[in-house]
Every structure is written in C-alpha cells, then in structure tokens.
C-alpha cells in the first residue's frame, strides 16, 4: 500500500510536470519536427527555436522587452520591500493605534479587481505623458504588491525578539539603523519570501503592461501576446519564448520553495 501511494505520487508529479517538459522539448526541435502529428520524439535536437526567438531571421530582438521586465520587477520589488519594512515596523514592532484596521485596509485593497481602475490610470498616464514608460510600470507594480508585502512583513517582524530591540533603543540607535542593523538580519528570511512573491507577480503581470505600454516599455509578457494569433510554423519558437521568459521565475521559485509557501500564505505559514 505504501509503495503504491509513492508510485501514485510520482505519476501525479510527472503528469503535472509533463507540459513544462513538453514545452522545453518542443523548443529544442526544428519547426518541421515540432509540427508533426503524431509527435516525432526521435527528431534531432536543435537550438533554432531559440535563435528565432532572439531574432535570427527577423532581426526583432526580445532583449528590450526582457530588460523592461527586469527593470519593472526588480525596482518595484526593491521599493516594495523598503516601504513594507517601514510599514511593518509601524504595525508590528512599535504598533500605531488600531494597527489591525490599517493591516486589513491594506489587504482589502488587494481584493478589488485591478481592472476596474485601469481606465483612469490610462487616462491620467496619457495626460501626464507616462504612457509607454517603464517607470509607470514600476509605480503600478509597487502599488500592486505593496498590500501583500505589508501583510507579510508584519507577520515576519512580529517574530523579532523584543529584547534586541530594547538593547538597540538603549544604545540610542535611530530607526534606519535599527531597521538595517537589527531587524533586517533577523527578518531576512521573511524579506526574501516577500521579495520573491513580489518579483514573481510583477514579472508575470500582463493586463496593465499590455494596455499601458507599447514598443518602448513593453514587458516580456506583452512580447508573448504577439504569439496569441500566430499562424504557420512557429511552435518551437513560441515554446522557446515561453521557456526563456519563464526561466527567471522557475529558477527563483525552485531555489526558494519554502519561501514560496510562506509568501503564498501571506506569512501565515512559517
């Protein structure tokens, strides 16, 4: 019985992983081999799909999109972590009055569908000339992730022992010093979990990027949408594109599996 359940677990794992493996496998085939039915699993492997994705024949490079995505995700994650640490301090370590209300306010903003605010954001960005600007995405992604991050940082900062805070206060340390020298080392795993989740959500975001950016500030998911209605032989190219653009998230998520759990449960699970 035990052994059977182990085998079942393996089969389920393989079933869920299979589409990902198939994506990578297809990306390593020539377009002709990728489009055969039934699939030709013995076809020779090639990197042509990746060469095509990087613009070998069209000259259209995906690098600007990847760089935009990296900028928007990394800068917004950094901003979110700084703002959320400060807020977490005021909610968990030296709490303001009615701090639970503040905490739930942050969470409630996350429950309103972002799409309902998209039009005014579009109109305002248009008026102040921020359309198709990567810094607009930085601001929006910061706002998008801040509520989750505040919630998480609060639950991680509550774990910081009071004794070391008192010791720091006796030494006359000011808030920035306390945050950097005392709290950050203790809360570092929590900060990492927060940063991981914020990075993944910003990297993945497509709706706002599609409406608010174009050729200059387009992000990697926007680049991917150009494949939605494609026709003809393009399967290995699209699989290569999907693989390359997913690699940062896959790498970060695999490297920090436990952080992922902490983050997804808003810090409720340690």
């Amino acid at each position, binding site marked *: 019985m035990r052994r059977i359940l*182990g085998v079942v677990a393996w089969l389920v794992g393989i079933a869920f992983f299979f589409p990902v493996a198939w994506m990578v496998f297809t990306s390593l085939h020539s377009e002709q081999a990728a489009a055969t*039915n039934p699939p030709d699993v013995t076809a020779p492997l090639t990197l042509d799909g990746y060469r095509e994705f990087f613009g070998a024949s069209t000259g259209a490079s995906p690098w600007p999109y990847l760089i935009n995505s990296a900028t928007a995700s990394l800068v917004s994650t950094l901003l979110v972590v700084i*703002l959320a640490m400060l807020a977490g301090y005021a909610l968990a370590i030296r709490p303001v009055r009615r701090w639970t209300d*503040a905490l739930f306010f942050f969470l409630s903003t996350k429950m309103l569908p972002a799409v*309902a605010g998209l039009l005014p954001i579009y109109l305002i960005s248009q008026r102040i000339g921020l359309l198709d600007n990567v810094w607009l995405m930085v601001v929006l992604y910061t706002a998008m992730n801040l509520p989750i991050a505040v919630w998480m940082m609060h639950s991680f900062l509550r774990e910081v022992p009071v004794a070391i805070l008192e010791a720091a206060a006796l030494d006359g340390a000011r808030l920035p010093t306390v945050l950097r020298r005392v709290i950050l080392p203790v809360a570092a795993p929590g900060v990492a979990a927060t940063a991981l989740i914020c990075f993944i959500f910003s990297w993945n975001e497509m709706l706002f990027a599609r409406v608010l950016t174009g050729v200059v500030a387009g992000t990697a998911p926007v680049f*991917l949408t150009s494949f939605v209605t494609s026709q003809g032989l393009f399967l290995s190219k699209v*699989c290569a594109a999907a693989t390359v653009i997913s690699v940062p998230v896959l790498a970060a998520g*695999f490297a920090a599996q436990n952080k*992922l759990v902490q983050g997804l449960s808003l810090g409720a*699970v340690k």
Partner: protein
Amino acid sequence: MSTVTVSAPQTLRRNRSAPRVRAWARRGPLLPALLFTIVVTQLPFVATLVISFLDWNALYPDRRGFAGLGNYSAVLTDPALRASIGTTALLTVSVVLVSLVLGLGIALLLNRAFLGRGIVRTMLIAPFLVVPVAAALLWKHALYNPEYGLFNGILSAVGGSHAPQPDWISTMPTAAVVAALVWQWTPFMMLILLAGLQSRPPDVIEAATVDGAGPFAVFRYITLPHLRQYLELGGLLGCIYIVQNFDAVFTITSGGLGTANLPYTIYETFYQAHDYGRASAAGVVVVVASIVVATFALRVVSSLFRQEAR
C-alpha cells in the same frame, strides 16, 4: 520664583503635545506605504465611479456629458455583459473547487515519506512558476492545437490514422480554459494545504491512533477540521486571483466562444469599443461584487490570523 511662572506654561504645553508627537512618530513609518497605496490603488476607483456616470466614448469626444444611471442600465441589460458575469462565476468556482480537491489529494500524497519526495514536490510546483501568458500559449498551441498539438498527437500515436482529432478549444472552450487554469492553480493549493498538514499537532494524531482511530477517522475528525482554515485561505486567495484572471481568457480563446469573463469584457469595452462610461460602470459592478466576496474573505483571514496570534 519668576523662573517657575515662566516655565510652567511651557511644561504644560509640552505635556499636552507630547503624546500627539509620539503618536505621529509612530505613524511616520506607516505613512509612505499608506499614502502610496491610497493614491495609486484607491483614487482610480473614485475616478472610475465618476466616469461611470458619464456618457463618454473616446470615438465621439464631443458627446461627453452626464449619463446618470444610463451606463448601469446598459451594463446590466447588455446580454454579453450579463453572460460574462455568469462566465466569471463559473470559471472561478470550477477552477477553485477542482484545484482545491486535487491540491488536497496531492498534499495528502506528499505528506508521507517516499523515495524522491523532494523531486516530486519540485515537479509539482513547476506549473505555478510558468509565466501565466506562457502557460496559456503552451496549452493553446502545443497541447490543444488540433493539427500538431500534443493531445491529438497522442490520440493518433495510440489510435493510428483513424483516431479522432477533436478541435479542443472550439468544442469545449470553457473546459479548455478551466483545465489550463486548474493545472496552474493546483500546485498553489497543494503548497498551502501541505503546509497545513505539516502543522498538524503530531501528539493528537498519535493519541487518536493509540485509542484505535483508523486513518479515515483521523482524516475526518482531526485532519479535516485542522485543515479547514487552510482550505478557506487557499480557496479565498484563489478566488481573488481567478476572478481577476485575464491572461488565460485573452490568450486561449481571446474571449470568444462564451468564455469572456468580466475583466476581459471590461478590457474590450474600453480597449476596442472605447466606451469609457460603460467600461467604468462595468468596473463598478465588479468592485461591488468583489466587496461582497472580500468581506467574507477578510473575516476568514482575520480568524486565521487571530488563532495564529494566540
């Protein structure tokens, strides 16, 4: 004597203002995040509310005016929008329920020791870590495509040249979207439920086993009540994200074949039809519906949070 009379009012004033200064010093670190959130995420909703009462179509800029409740009656009587409300509910409920049930089953499987458990867990997480647009493209082109997709490829590999070759997306569009989303969200549910399983107090289970409780009784009377909050947390977070899902609908069916959910319809109204007033009214309807769900969600999260705070 004179020193006393001079310093007395000063001390008094300091006493009166000191708590206020201290309260603001406490609020200080919170304010940047709070203001940022309010300005960037809340003010747009106010603007949406205002625009929803306007007759404003970007294609006819001269005809802008006050529309009263016109946009709302248009939204609520428009069959396409009404249908998208139903589609949103159907998508959300089916994806959340199916991935919760699958996630629970897999979490139970993974909560026991077996050879290569770490590898299996890593493989299971992978779908959640594929960028959503990439995942949707993968399902649309590499799996569902009737000519060269993997599903029909397997059918013809097994059944030969006379094997059925269904066009998955046009024959079952909603199920196609649901399946792709379930594939991405089951790992999410599994991770939360697995964490819940691992936080079960081992001594209680041990005591129950000693008292002669079988594995089913342990599951029914100990595991399930303990998991209830984790099931609720997973379900509600899943609802929040899947109600707002845009990527899968946009990519797999482009909102066609009756799969347009509310986010997609709002996007269309504003992006293709340029009807700002009506898009905003639809947005307000979505917000109101979300508030109903959110009130319930917040209560669940706060109960989880209280228990943890004990």
